[in-house]
């Protein structure tokens, strides 16, 4: 037991997954295996993108790393500690806005501090600082419904940063934004990532987004999700997304994904036929 628990890898790694899998509704008739056999090491300060067809378990893996759900196979560690519950060190940012609509922007950003019982002055100071970093200090006293979609996601990033996380988990955070806003948000995220020093695990199904952001792209197979390949990208930043190198990468990733999407489609059709 103890020999199995002891991490046989560097305890400095931001995230370590060993044989991780998840079966939803395990033990019931609706049980289905979303994810299986994931081995992954993420270095501190690394930017990793999860790429895969929808339904392949990318969000599920993020939930497991966040500690919001328990893995049904394997184990996860973060900086040497076994992941068995959520921690402020691993902040999660969702696709749709998850700001509390009844709180102002600064109250949203300092929500985590209020949980710990921090004073109002302290909360306001921290919120102001975090909002400064996302360029929204002026919107402190606004309410979420007064902001645009892009601004709301920046507030969500500020809220995560206010907790000084070591790992930022982002589940298709820009998927609901228009193309121009998304490009700006990617630049913004790279800035934030650089000066926070946190590792980022970023889920997307956009190949362009993966090429623009990642140090490494983890490509998933369709259900049950496994790691198909890991594609390192060593283009220097800021990246020229129209370069020959970027184009080659896009082609390679497209090829890798196409097989999986085809397989996912065939599977869905087979399911529809039996139903």
């Amino acid at each position, binding site marked *: 037991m103890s020999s199995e628990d002891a991490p046989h890898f560097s305890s400095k790694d931001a995230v370590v997954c060993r044989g991780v899998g998840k079966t939803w509704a395990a033990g019931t008739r609706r049980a289905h295996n979303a994810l299986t056999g994931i081995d992954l090491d993420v270095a501190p300060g690394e930017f990793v993108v999860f790429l895969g067809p929808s339904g392949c378990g990318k969000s599920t893996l993020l939930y497991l790393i966040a500690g*919001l759900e328990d893995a049904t196979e394997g184990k996860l560690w973060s900086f040497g500690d076994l992941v068995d519950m*959520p*921690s402020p060190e691993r902040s*999660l940012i969702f696709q749709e806005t998850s700001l509390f609509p009844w709180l102002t922007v600064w109250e949203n950003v300092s929500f*985590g501090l209020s*949980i710990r019982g921090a004073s109002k002055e302290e909360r306001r100071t921290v919120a102001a600082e975090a909002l400064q970093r996302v360029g929204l200090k002026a919107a402190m006293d606004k309410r979420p419904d007064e902001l645009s979609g892009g601004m709301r996601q920046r507030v969500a990033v500020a809220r995560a940063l206010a*907790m000084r996380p070591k790992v930022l988990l982002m589940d298709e955070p820009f998927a609901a934004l228009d193309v121009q806003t998304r490009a700006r948000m990617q630049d913004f995220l790279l800035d934030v990532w650089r000066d926070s020093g946190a590792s980022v695990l970023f889920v997307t199904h956009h190949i362009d987004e993966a090429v623009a952001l990642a140090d490494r792209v983890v490509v998933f197979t369709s259900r049950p999700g496994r790691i198909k390949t890991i594609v390192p990208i060593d283009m220097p930043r800021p990246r020229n997304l129209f370069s020959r190198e970027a184009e080659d990468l896009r082609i390679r990733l497209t090829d890798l994904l196409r097989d999986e999407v085809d397989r996912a489609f065939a599977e869905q059709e087979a399911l529809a036929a039996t139903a």
Partner: protein
Amino acid sequence: MAVVTRDSDSSGTAGGASRPPAASRLLASMAGLDWLARIWWTCLSISLFAGLWELCWAMGWADEKLLPPPHIFLDNIGEQGRYFNTATRWQVGQSMAEGPSAFESVLITGAATTARVFVGLIIASVLAIGVGVLIRYYRFFDRLVLPTITLLSPVSPIAWLPVAIFLFGIGNAPAIFMVVVALFFHMVLATINQIDTVNTNLINVARTMGASKAQIYTRVIVPAILPGMLQVLRMNLFGAWMVVLVAESTGVGYGMGQVIMLARNTFNPSLVFFTIAVIGVLGFTFDWLLRLAQRRILYWLPDTVERLRVL
């Protein structure tokens, strides 16, 4: 006032997108005077109804002894109002002429009934939200209590009337009890339903920030279900008004229900319709106040009516 600006904003954009036809331009220009327009439509709606009734009377289709039209039952307010003075009428040695004036009597009676509805609503909401939250918070409480609540919720409040009288006799208590019973079970089930539909992302955000279960309930779930609960409260408001009349008619010192019973026993259709009119106005006002409160408290909610209006 936030309400008015929001309304005028959205009608402004709806009309301003392209060149609007004359009719909608007129409507848009009226949006600034939104509350005035609303009063105007309310008056028009009521006048239309009263007018049809008057027409029936004028044509001789409606017997004024059985279905007296508004101008008759509203005509002798002084006369009708006197019947509302049920409290003093029952006191020994007091004649009908003594005690508060007719107008005061109507006010006192109306206020008494309104107060019962109000107190009943408050008690029912606090209890129901409390029990609903406890049911979701503690598994064992859920298993222990929910079956009984589900079992009792389809029972008509009328069936509780004898219980109200056995338990509380005569007075305010049975009427309030009836209101509470009529609302409580539905509101518990509504609370549970609201809790189950809270956006899981909000809960997960709180969890990653280290919130305890109690904090998740107080800081996330309760504020998140509040809008839905106020909606539920508004929908149950009229139910409360109906039930309170039944309770009052069976033996509370005074109240609108009592006046209706009096009108029935003395065969006084004019008084019936007058009382109905008073109840209507009271219920309408109550609903309006609740709607106002809803907009004030739940400032973050969008206005759905506006979205439908552009269709």
